[in-house]
């Protein structure tokens, strides 16, 4: 058989492609459920972290999140739960960061001005600089802090209400977080005030 002929080339390429792609399709199918589960856990973990509910194992995440009430207000999914003597509302947010979209969860107490916490789901900020928004130190600032009028201000050393500490060397990301969270606080408040919940 002439291995350099056009027919052989076409048949060979077809068989090789078919074989490899079939295996890939099978592998993808076999893990699809697990991948979906991972994504579900990642999302639920972000909500629990934002609200401030401690968890230890993956099963616990699914269990604890199952106790959170899901509401749909004007096509937006809002989660409500009681934690630490407060009614807490949580919803996803996203906005333009320095390099790309920052996605996360914002949790708000019943006064609609005090944040219960935030969690970052994903971002494309500079590792070690803007990327530090995912560090506990940054996120913990939102634990039970009041932002009068829904305005977030980043300052060198946060002391008063409405202030958070800026990240050194990451002015772009800090400004973006100020802008995103201020807008999100307003939007979230309007959403909850305008509804009957």
């Amino acid at each position, binding site marked *: 058989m002439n291995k*350099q002929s056009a027919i052989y080339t076409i048949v060979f390429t077809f068989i090789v492609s078919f074989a490899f792609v079939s295996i*890939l399709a099978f592998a993808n199918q076999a893990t699809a459920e*697990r991948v979906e589960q*991972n*994504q579900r856990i990642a999302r639920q973990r972000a909500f629990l972290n934002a609200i401030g509910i401690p968890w230890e194992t993956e099963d616990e995440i699914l269990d604890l999140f199952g106790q959170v009430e899901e509401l749909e207000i004007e096509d937006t999914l809002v989660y409500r739960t009681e934690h630490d003597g407060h009614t807490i509302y949580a919803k996803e947010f996203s906005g333009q960061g320095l390099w790309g979209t920052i996605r996360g969860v914002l949790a708000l107490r019943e006064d609609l001005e005090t944040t219960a916490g935030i969690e970052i789901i994903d971002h494309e900020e500079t590792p070690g600089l803007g990327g530090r928004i995912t560090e506990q130190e940054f996120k913990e600032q939102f634990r039970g802090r009041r932002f009068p009028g829904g305005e977030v201000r980043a300052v060198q050393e946060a002391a008063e209400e409405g202030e958070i500490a800026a990240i050194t*060397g990451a002015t772009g990301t800090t400004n973006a977080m100020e802008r995103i969270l201020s807008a999100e606080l307003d939007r979230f408040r309007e959403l909850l005030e305008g509804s009957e919940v």
Partner: protein
Amino acid sequence: MSDTAAPKTASGVLANNLWHSNPIFMQVLGICSALAVTNLLVNTAIMSVGVIFVMGMTNLTVSLLKHAIPRKVRMIVQTLIIAFYVIIVDIVLRAYLPDIHEALGPYVGLIITNCIIMGRAEAFAQSNGPVLSFWDGVTSGLGYMGVLMTVALIRELFGFGSLFGFTVLPELWEPWIIMVMPPSAFFLLGIIIWIGKALMNREEAPA
């Protein structure tokens, strides 16, 4: 790239791929990922293991199929084989190590474009037996890993003050921001190539 002088024994291949024609600092191939994934040791280690697996399996497969592959579509078939193994790595990471998958982002997919893999498939696996080809792929991957881990060690230590995520430098340590950014890998890689070449020149011309 001519590889006619390459040794055909297992130990010769090992020495060659780890040192004399190290893919990174002698051939300067595959440095895209060397710049992108070397700011944390854990990510670098996982990425390197991925490259070692893909390169070994690609070389093995190419070597097994070498007599059946028509010359005209040789390169396309090699790319297909590389892409196949890379997607396998991607699927495994996504399903079983989602956090690492998240951290490596698009770079796993970019293993496909890593010139070392294509280079070894074309230069070695096309003309050698399956076992030796597999070994060549694995050792080339180890050569890649060695250089990348060195770069990552320096970058993580000075950039974050930690190693494998554990803080080792005291609180007072002020991280070097440049070490976290891709340009630092350029400088470090340049320095590694310089040292490597200098040592090799000394070996070749004994005083």
